[in-house]
């Protein structure tokens, strides 16, 4: 009898049925406004991007290869544990990124959730956000803009911690001689983004 009970539903059956039910659950949770951090992915020429959007705005964009499990846990502790894949909440950000990579968009019109930034990074990234499409600034220039002209190195570290790359254009900040120097997503991606924007480094040099 108890053996029969155990074989009534196999774990494999339950798993496939749970996965189908999860899709419905995500849609219902989103419709009910019970999702605090919505996750979504999109394909791009620089690999799959993973976005996190809260009711306050876009909080994070992660490149392919970043540890999503670690990031999701950070969202859970800093933002809210109610983290769920949700297509509608991430749709606007995904669409605008698509347009950017298609060359149809130069400015993002998205609200940002800056809670994953330290106060200093907020300042640095705020200044970075004012470097327009098709232009570049040096680390020193960004440091000067926030009134800390000697803090170029700290500025570099803050840019490296940018949780919302591409939309907050830290790729537009380059070394004093116009070299690309560093990028959290890798120099190849930085070069690709600048190329997409018309190779502004070349003009500066």
């Amino acid at each position, binding site marked *: *009898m*108890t053996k*029969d*009970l*155990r074989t*009534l*539903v196999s*774990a494999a*059956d*339950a*798993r496939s*049925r*749970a*996965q189908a*039910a*999860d899709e*419905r*659950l995500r849609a*219902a*949770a989103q419709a*009910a406004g*019970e999702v*605090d*951090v919505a*996750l979504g992915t999109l394909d791009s020429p620089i690999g799959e991007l993973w976005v996190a959007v809260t009711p306050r705005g876009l909080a994070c964009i992660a490149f392919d290869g970043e540890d999503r*499990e670690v990031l*999701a*846990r950070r*969202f*859970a*502790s800093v933002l*809210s*544990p*109610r*983290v*769920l*894949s949700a297509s509608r909440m991430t749709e606007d950000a995904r669409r605008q990124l698509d347009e950017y990579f298609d060359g149809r968009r130069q400015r993002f019109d998205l609200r940002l959730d800056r809670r994953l930034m330290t106060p200093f990074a907020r300042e640095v990234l705020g200044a970075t956000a004012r470097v327009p499409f098709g232009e570049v600034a040096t680390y020193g220039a960004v440091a000067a803009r926030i009134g800390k002209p000697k803090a170029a190195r700290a500025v570099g570290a803050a840019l490296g911690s940018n949780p919302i790359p591409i939309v907050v254009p830290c790729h537009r900040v380059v070394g004093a001689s116009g070299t690309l120097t560093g990028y959290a997503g890798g120099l190849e991606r930085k070069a690709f983004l600048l190329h997409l924007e018309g190779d502004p480094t070349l003009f500066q040099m």
Partner: protein
Amino acid sequence: MRTQSPPPFEEFLAEHGTAVMRFLIVAVGPEHADDAYQETFLSALRGYARVRDDSRLDRWILRIASRTAIDHHRRRLRGPTPSGEVPDYPVHDPEPPDAGLWAAVGTLPAKQRVAVVLRHVLDRPYDEIGDVLGCSNDAARANVSAGLKTLRETMR
């Protein structure tokens, strides 16, 4: 005294979804399991921001699932289906020997059914079943054995 947040809900869902679905398929019947699953996890999501990492999440979600299953039975008893009638479950793989057991499980009182499923489908220990059902260890054991006794009699 850790007051860390629980894991991201998506991770929690991946970890417990299969067990909860397995529990519900037997506890409320295959036909109602999907709805009960939605109800269970939506209710969990509503309370999730207040949960702490050190609470036993596996027990917590089974407690919600059990409550959902028991509510489900009560609602159906009040509904158009006359009590005592064997529910006609569409078993997805209707092997003849299983059909009898499904029907027999369907006749169990809600609490016994939940207790039997926790013990003999999910292999949970009695102290956990008591915790989930909000009763003592002994009461949990009594519910399981009463349920099994009824099943054996029905199947005879």
